[in-house]
């Protein structure tokens, strides 16, 4: 699955990278990796306002795996 790795980056970079990837991709599923709760919330908010949906968020060690899909 296409993955945006925004771990270690602070806002607004994770959001900028995610929104950028959403615009470029032809896929309808994507994985975003972040490592702070603030980034998790910001990315989720941005994903929703760009017509995508957050399917699942799983914490994995220091990382949050955010699975998103189109529509």
């Amino acid at each position, binding site marked *: 699955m296409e993955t945006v790795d925004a771990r270690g980056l*602070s806002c*607004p970079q994770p959001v*900028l990278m995610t929104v950028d990837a959403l615009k470029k991709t032809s896929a309808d599923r994507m994985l975003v990796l972040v490592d*702070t*709760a603030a980034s998790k919330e910001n990315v989720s908010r941005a994903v929703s*306002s760009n017509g995508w949906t957050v399917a699942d968020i799983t914490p994995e060690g220091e990382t949050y795996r955010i699975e998103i899909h189109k529509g």
Partner: protein
Amino acid sequence: MKNIFATRSGIIGVGAFIGVMAALLQFWGNPGNMGICVACFVRDITGALGLHRASVVQYVRPEIIGLVIGSLAAALVFKEFRPRGGSAPIVRFVLGAFAMIGALVFLGCPWRAMLRLAGGDGNAIFGLLGLVAGIWIGTRFLKAGYNLGRTRVYSTTAGWVMPALAAGLFLLLLIFPRTEGQEQSGVLFYSLKGPGAMNAPIAVSLIIGLIIGFLAQRSRFCTMGAFRDLILFKQVHLFSGVVALIVFAFTTNLIVKQFHPGFAGQPVAHVLHLWNALGMVLAGLAFALAGGCPGRQLFLSGEGDTDAGIFVVGMVAGAAFAHNFGLASSPAGIGPHGMAAVVIGLIVCGAIGFTMKQK
């Protein structure tokens, strides 16, 4: 667990709480339109430690200590305490220093710009316009790929340094309290007149700071992010928080009769519109490049972000330079070298914005 403070009503509630409490802190003794000003209060702490010797702005402000420790508490309770750092620390130090210098040319951080507006100080309008312009420039850099690089995970001790420093400052305040008529008490300096001599009771200041720190860590309240997200993503989430701050501070000011509209004679303010604006252009740009307003940097310091901690230490250095070198403004106008400092700051921040790009 869902974070209710990160919802729209959550951020509005937090902004409203800060607005009401800031106005009340002023009512209870803090300086005019300065219920809470992160830049001014860090500057006062710098003076209390003798790192600058501007005698009218020396006091260990318990609010600042509360903001850091309150954020630490929230981060620990909700398991968000993450010691981290290594994202261009020296650059963040410089950004912190120039952010402070810009804020002291205007005479206030974004929080105070909003509180000044809510108190009727028309000069704040120029400061806020400058702030938005500075943040707008920052968003152009962000769009062009500006980036300070990734952080990495640090050991727990590193994350505790800033909260420990804050706690240490509070200890000093307790050990060496203000002595009537004395400028010095042990190792600390106090103001006998001016804004540094005006303060709400210590316990009140500390408790309000703690609560705001706790709430702001949960809600990610940020006055720079408010405008940045609006410009970059047309997103009003954080912006609704700062609107709430202004509206509720204004309303509280009306109720306690602290609203005095006008331009001349406003508390701790000058009427040089161009420099009110340009000071905040510099501050806004530095905040945008560093990823947070001074308040947000304190909250991040509390949750273990040592890069934000370096920004705060940079603010302390900036405050020292601002007063030792005559860069800071006063109600009489800008300092003798304020103009030069703003120009140099804009050049330095511009160079950082143009050149710092990392994958």
